[in-house]
């Protein structure tokens, strides 16, 4: 029983990281219909920020964490300004290829700058809590709590504030939103900023679970988070959450039954099945195409 419980918590911990990253994908896709492949690599940059600020500069962990979030946010907005804004009216294919290019640029740039080896660091959060007969790691509890809080804040931001309203308007119809006096550039940049900040938080939570950084750590994490976003319904905030938890639990389950080397294949098979059976995902809305 306790084994099942601890696997469940593991799954939820991993799932909340996926959910946070998936939210970034989902928001960006919802607003400019772009699969931001570089999103996963922002996590990698965040992780390296924490590593260097803690080991090289000896900053306090909290300062490092804040620094990671700030740098991730700045990076996300810069990428949007430099690479995606000039292509706003270009065909979707060009935008997608650009996103892939940025993703590979970040990965290979990191490999050149920081080396290809994995950098290990001290655990950010240690200790555990005794609940009943099982030990729960504090990191897991913090991870799950932080992601739930982040999602609540995000929902309020999107549903209740003026900027959130602008975001929803732009994702509904870019042209009309602009006619209503909404600044497209500012709204899209804001979306990227929020998504990248979430990726920054995600990177910190990832470091709580696996305290190491490597140039390619973001790509698989990003791809799986993307699968989570598609599973939950891309463009939907609660969908990304559900998808993230589902993928995390599924991976924990695959590892628990001894298929840990197969878990990537399991995740991508789920993706293919979801796209065939219900392409809009669990909570996605149907997009009708206008001729």
């Amino acid at each position, binding site marked *: 029983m306790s084994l099942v419980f601890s696997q469940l918590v593991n799954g939820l911990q991993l799932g909340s990281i996926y959910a946070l990253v998936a939210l970034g994908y989902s928001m960006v896709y919802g607003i400019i219909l772009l699969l931001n492949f570089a999103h996963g690599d922002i996590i990698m940059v965040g992780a390296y920020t924490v590593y260097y600020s803690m080991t090289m500069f000896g900053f306090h962990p909290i300062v490092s964490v804040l620094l990671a979030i700030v740098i991730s946010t700045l990076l996300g907005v810069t990428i949007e300004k430099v690479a995606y804004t000039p292509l706003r009216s270009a065909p979707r*294919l060009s935008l997608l290829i650009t996103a892939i290019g*940025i993703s590979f640029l970040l990965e290979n740039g990191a490999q050149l700058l920081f080396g290809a080896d994995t950098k290990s660091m001290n655990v950010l959060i240690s200790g555990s809590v005794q609940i009943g007969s099982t030990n729960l790691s504090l990191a897991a509890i913090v991870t799950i709590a932080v992601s739930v809080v982040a999602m609540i804040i995000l929902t309020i931001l999107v549903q209740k504030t003026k900027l959130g309203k602008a975001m929803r308007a732009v994702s509904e119809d870019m042209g009309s939103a602009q006619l209503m006096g909404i600044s497209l550039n500012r709204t899209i940049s804001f979306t990227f900023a929020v998504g990248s900040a979430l990726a920054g938080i995600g990177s910190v939570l990832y470091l709580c679970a696996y305290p190491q950084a490597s140039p390619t750590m973001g*790509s698989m994490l990003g791809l799986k988070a993307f699968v989570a976003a598609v599973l939950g319904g891309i463009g939907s905030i609660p969908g990304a959450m559900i998808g993230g938890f589902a993928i995390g639990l599924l991976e924990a389950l695959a590892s628990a039954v001894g298929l840990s080397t*197969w878990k990537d294949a399991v995740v991508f098979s789920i993706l*293919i099945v979801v796209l065939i059976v219900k392409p809009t995902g669990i909570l996605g809305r149907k997009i009708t195409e206008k001729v």
Partner: protein
Amino acid sequence: MNEKKLIRIPTPARYLINLVLIVALYLVIDALKNAGVITKYWNGILIVVGINIILATSLNIATGYLGQLPLGHAGFMAIGAYTGGILMKSLPVDKMVAAGDTMGALPYILLAILCSAIIAGLFGLLIGIPALRLRGDYLAIITLGFGEIIRVVLTNIDSVLGFKFTYGSAGLKRIPKFSTFGLVFICVVVCCGLIHMMMKSRHGRAVLSIRDNEIAAESVGINTTYYKTMAFVFSAMLAGVAGCLYAGYLGSLVPSTFKFMKSIEILVMVVLGGMGSMLGSILSATVLTLLPELLRSVADYRMVAYSLLLVIMMIFRPKGLLGSYDFSMSRVLEKFLNWITGRSKAADAAKSEKEAAK
């Protein structure tokens, strides 16, 4: 009003001209090899160039002509490579290949190439039918997932029904090295010829119309799902051929070769050369294979340069270096003949006269 019509080279003659040029190219390379200008090392690189040309032109069918973005081309290549590798290992060709008896081994080699193409095509069909029904970026995602699944499966499975087959992450070793330069050259010519003929046919035009406007194509009665699947499967089949040749060139296969990175490398070749231009794909595959060999000292920066190139290309010249331009020797000859005989001037004059009359 003008009695002199423009000279047009008839189609059979056009094919003949191309054939002569291709044979001439082969003879030149062969002569260079015999003269010792092309060493054994460079011979190997030329084989890789050939394999990359097949990969780039085959991806170009799906990306340039069909307007989709498959990100799992390395997966199809892996299927072709493993099919070819396993077949060649189990067929009695080891000694023939080792002795250089290419003619004796040729039926087996052709069988292996054909099987690789068919099995890669079958997987293409399997993935293409559901994926191509969806619009937008979903094809990219599904093919990406598929490529990863293939790699994970190849890494984890080492025997099928008790037969040692793929040897898991240790890799498939001791495949007869059957890919000679001549074989690869012929395969490149046949593949490019097939693509050219398909794209100039009724089917090819249907594929192009889907790229330009899917809804309009559907409304004039083109079965879009059928043509999309056909082009996609064709692309997968040729990737399988390239994979088979790759297996025969290296002699050993490991699953980690066929990572997502490999798919992107092929994509860079297509995007750089120009989506929808066969010449563009061929040229950029050649240049991007030769360049890292020539610039060994800065090889570490290769992937950074590739990715920068991709972004800069998309921002400043999204069509690629050549756009959709395709070179035709016959067209150049026609222009030359017309210019020599002074017919093009007459035609221009007639054209401007016509426009003035409007």
